């Protein structure tokens, strides 16, 4: 909720691994996925809710997730998504890439911090 705005590009780029990672824990539907993203990012990753669905459908087209309709106890129909094996592989690949970026950034900022101290 603080003023920290994560750039649109970054949000878009991170959407796929985050959605896949959420689905690895359990099958889920759009609204719950959004709630989960809010929760794990302490409300700092804010998506426009609707934008999740094109992402999900793209993932489905690519074969990373499959979907099915299910009727909740409230009687409401919800579309659940499940991670496929291909999705699992993709998630691993993406996580690895993010880790590379993350490590590189960390090293650089660490060096920066150290050289700051050196001065």
């Amino acid at each position, binding site marked *: 909720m603080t003023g920290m705005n994560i750039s649109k590009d970054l949000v878009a780029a991170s959407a796929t691994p985050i959605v896949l990672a959420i689905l690895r824990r359990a099958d889920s*539907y759009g609204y719950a996925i959004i709630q989960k993203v809010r929760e794990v990012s302490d409300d700092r990753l804010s998506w*426009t809710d*609707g934008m999740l669905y094109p992402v999900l*459908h793209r993932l489905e087209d690519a074969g990373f997730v499959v979907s099915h309709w299910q009727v909740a106890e409230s009687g409401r*129909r919800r579309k659940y998504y499940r991670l496929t094996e291909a999705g699992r592989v993709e998630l691993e690949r993406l996580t690895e890439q993010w880790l590379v970026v993350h490590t590189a950034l960390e090293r650089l900022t660490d060096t920066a911090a150290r050289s700051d101290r050196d001065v």
Partner: protein
Amino acid sequence: MFELESQVRKWRGHLRSSGSLGEDELEELESHLRDSIDDLTTRGVTTEEAFLVSIRRLGDTEALSNEFAKVTTESVWRQLLVPAPDESSRRRQRTEVMLVIGLALLAGLLGKIPALLGWGLDTDEPLVYVKNASLFALPSVAVYLIWKRSLPLRFIFLAAAVFIGAAVLINLYPSRSPYDTVLLTALHLFIALLLPLAILYGGPGWRKTGTRLDFVRFAGEVFIYSVLIGLGGAVLVAVSIQVFQFVDVDIENFVVNWAVIFGGFGLLVVAAYLVEWKKGRIETIAPVLARIFTPLLLVVLVSLLLAILITGQAPAEDRELLIWFDLLLALVLGMTLYTMSARDAEDPTGFWDAVVFALVVVALVVDAVALAGIASRVAEYGATPNRLAALGANVLLLVNLVFLGLGYGRFLLRRVRYQVIVDLQMRYLPVYAVWAALVVIVFPPLFGFR
């Protein structure tokens, strides 16, 4: 008072009209919206606020549909062209396409029967085609609906009885110059046969208002599709006849005797198939046309009234004019029906209801003038089939417009719900078919088959 259901429907309609979201996506988004609203209201937010917040969170509809368009434009067309993933539905879709092609050919073959019996299009019996046109084109549509709805046997018997009965009757009736009753038969048979088609379209639930309204929508869309395909076909025919002339091959005979007959009579079943098939996938065009033409028609009618008032020329002076007046009024009714089919019955009164009300009232005045004209002609010169048919149609239209006018007036004053008007109108529609059937069955013998 905030009406959540009607707001949600509106929002959904708005998204649908963008054209890039399928029913499945809409359903998913609606489910999300409702989850979000429930969540917020349990936290003590009013429904209205919850709705607004949830909509906002879902994002601007335009951006949303653009985003969806990127993923789905392709897949919308894929859904249209390639069978659905499920094996049994895939098989059914393949069967459907084959069936429709077969039925279109059947309509064409029916259209060739007169030629087999020695009445070509170029002979002196073109009236055989005119008279039987509905019986060539509509049985295919009936078979298609029976298959599509998997209707029980009694509907099949009904359809068979109606079409065979009609075919026997109108072809046993002789026709003599000046062929007035034949032309009336051609026109009225089509209208009369819409009733059995409506029954087949609705299946066992055909009496319900909603089902009838669906049929009206269906018929309107089939009409639009037929016109579009027909225009395309006509251009193609004209161009190919010309082009083949340059290589000294005369295909005109072949084209007229085969392409026009097969294309023309097969058109309706193909259009019916297209309407059924794309149902809900792409925004329907009828409401758009209704919005464009309702105000234009109002302008035409008001100008017509002014012209009559200023020139003092009563429309009865000209014989042809009465038929044109009928057509004009039928057009008003058609527009009202289109508007009705596109309108959510729960919506509050709005600008367009006032426009329709004005249209109906002006049409009523025009109709009163026309009716006076027709009645005086009948009194003066005795009844001819054309005059009597025009008179009958006019009385029916007048009754219809009176209660539409009263209904709309009371609705605008918030005395009745919109649904009341719809119910009344839908119950009245079969009256037209019954009258048309009367004209087909009773008029020829009444006027000595002239």
